[in-house]
């Protein structure tokens, strides 16, 4: 066999190899197409078990993906809150309107302050009445109990810097008290961080789940085609050839599972959208139920396919290692 090949003159051999390579490439493409079709057909032949496997993949993907989505929109909300992080300087009660204006200018000129807006005692009263709906009760008061205040936007919204700024501004003459509402903002941020880590951990855990689900399904498929694998290996199939149909099955499972997860996430999103929006509105927040954009959808589908493919790869390789010659 190979003796005859080596006897050929080198130029002929080289040409044969070139045409051999392009026909090999065509054969490779042909086998890929055939296995892609064949593995899909095998899945369709057992619709119930295929769908169940895909559903298991989908469920494993939905939880981390859903959590991630929620956090993603929470991050948007967080950014909005960052911009609205303000300090309020309450001025001493005995300060007149003219002087209040001067103090506002002084505060605005202060290093670290982006903007300052004066709210006179009357304006404060007006806002207070409107927001609380207590016009009648407050109208009975003889004098305005509220001081004038200046709402300040810091240049740097990092919590520690805002606190430092508040401490310095408290020293400004005419400023009675500085108020900053940072505690809840920090709490929210910590919660978001916790949630993100949780989503990552869950993602890793459930990703492993997808690997195991597909790995087990493919292991059973390999088991049921054991004789076929042995025969084709005996007559010269490469490992890649043996693996190919199973890898395609894995990829199909992944695609199916990913699409199901995507569909269920969209459905669930729609189902939850109106109560979530209503709830957010009651807090005065403009929070929309998060939806998967095309990038998120692509990431979901690709990671589902990739994980399933990997699960199939591991299952087949384990089997191939078993039948290697001793």
């Amino acid at each position: 066999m190979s003796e005859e090949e080596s006897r050929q003159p080198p130029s002929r051999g080289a040409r044969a190899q070139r045409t051999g390579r392009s026909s090999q490439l065509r054969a490779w493409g042909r086998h890929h197409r055939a296995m892609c079709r064949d593995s899909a057909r095998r899945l369709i032949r057992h619709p119930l078990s295929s769908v169940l496997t895909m559903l298991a993949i989908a469920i494993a993907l939905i939880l981390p993906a859903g959590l991630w989505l929620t956090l993603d929109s929470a991050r948007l909300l967080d950014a909005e809150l960052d911009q609205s992080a303000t300090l309020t300087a309450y001025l001493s009660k005995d300060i007149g309107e003219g002087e209040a204006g001067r103090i506002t200018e002084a505060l605005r000129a202060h290093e670290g302050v982006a903007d300052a807006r004066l709210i006179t005692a009357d304006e404060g009263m007006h806002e207070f009445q409107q927001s609380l709906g207590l016009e009648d009760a407050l109208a009975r008061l003889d004098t305005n109990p509220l001081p004038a205040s200046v709402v300040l936007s810091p240049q740097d919204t990092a919590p520690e810097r805002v606190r430092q700024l508040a401490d310095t501004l408290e020293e400004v003459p005419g400023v009675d008290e500085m108020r900053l509402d940072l505690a809840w903002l920090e709490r929210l941020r910590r919660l978001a961080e916790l949630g993100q880590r949780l989503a990552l951990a869950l993602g890793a855990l459930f990703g492993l789940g997808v690997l195991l689900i597909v790995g087990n399904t493919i292991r059973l498929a390999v088991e049921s085609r054991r004789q076929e694998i042995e025969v084709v290996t005996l007559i010269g199939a490469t490992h890649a050839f043996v693996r190919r149909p199973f890898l395609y099955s894995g990829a199909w499972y992944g695609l199916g599972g990913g699409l199901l997860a995507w569909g269920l996430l969209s459905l669930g999103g729609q189902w939850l959208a109106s109560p979530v929006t209503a709830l957010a509105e009651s807090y005065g927040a403009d929070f929309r139920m998060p939806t998967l954009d095309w990038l998120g959808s692509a990431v979901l589908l690709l990671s589902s396919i990739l994980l399933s493919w990997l699960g199939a790869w591991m299952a087949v390789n384990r089997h191939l290692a078993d039948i290697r010659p001793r």
Partner: protein
Amino acid sequence: MIAFEHVGKRYGGRFEALSNIDFRVRRGEMVFLTGHSGAGKSSLLRLLMRLERPSRGRVLVAGHDIDRLHVSQIPFYRRQIGVVFQDHQLLFDRSIYDNVALPLDIQGMEPREAARRVRAALDKVGLLHRENALPVELSGGEQQRVGIARAVVNKPSLLLADEPTGNLDPQLSADIMSLFEDFNRIGTTVMVASHDLALITGLRHRILRLREGRLVADEEAL
């Protein structure tokens, strides 16, 4: 074509399936390998198929020590030998045609050329009219002929058969053997393992006798 050089094969460190096997088979020769079951016929063939590796000695095929083949080269080595199994090892969910086409599929042969070869091989074993049948619709002898068609479709220069007539009656067995002789006549080196002494002694080819893992006789063709 084949050379065994002081080959030994142990399983599990103790049981010695083959010991000090030493023989050569010339290109184009037809050889029977015989002995009781457990004498080491299958082990010898498994070494030739590179399903197992010798514990001692060397197995050379076409001048190459097949133990030194890299794992990735083994499939390409196996494509050069045709193998017929006792239990034919057909795939029962595929038609006769697809079974015979399998080696060509694996090699990635262009479908039209493959079809020509498959039909030629099926014609040779007399089963061209059954190409669309499933293996279960065929008799034992017919299934074995499909196995032979699959082994030769690739035009291998070496054809191995492990008890190809194991479950067949004498007439069918003789038919199968004459098929092997036909392939040998066109230049294929053929090695057939069989315990059916009555059958193979009548065929006047070289016979290698194994007993308890040793080569006890090497009878040249009369």
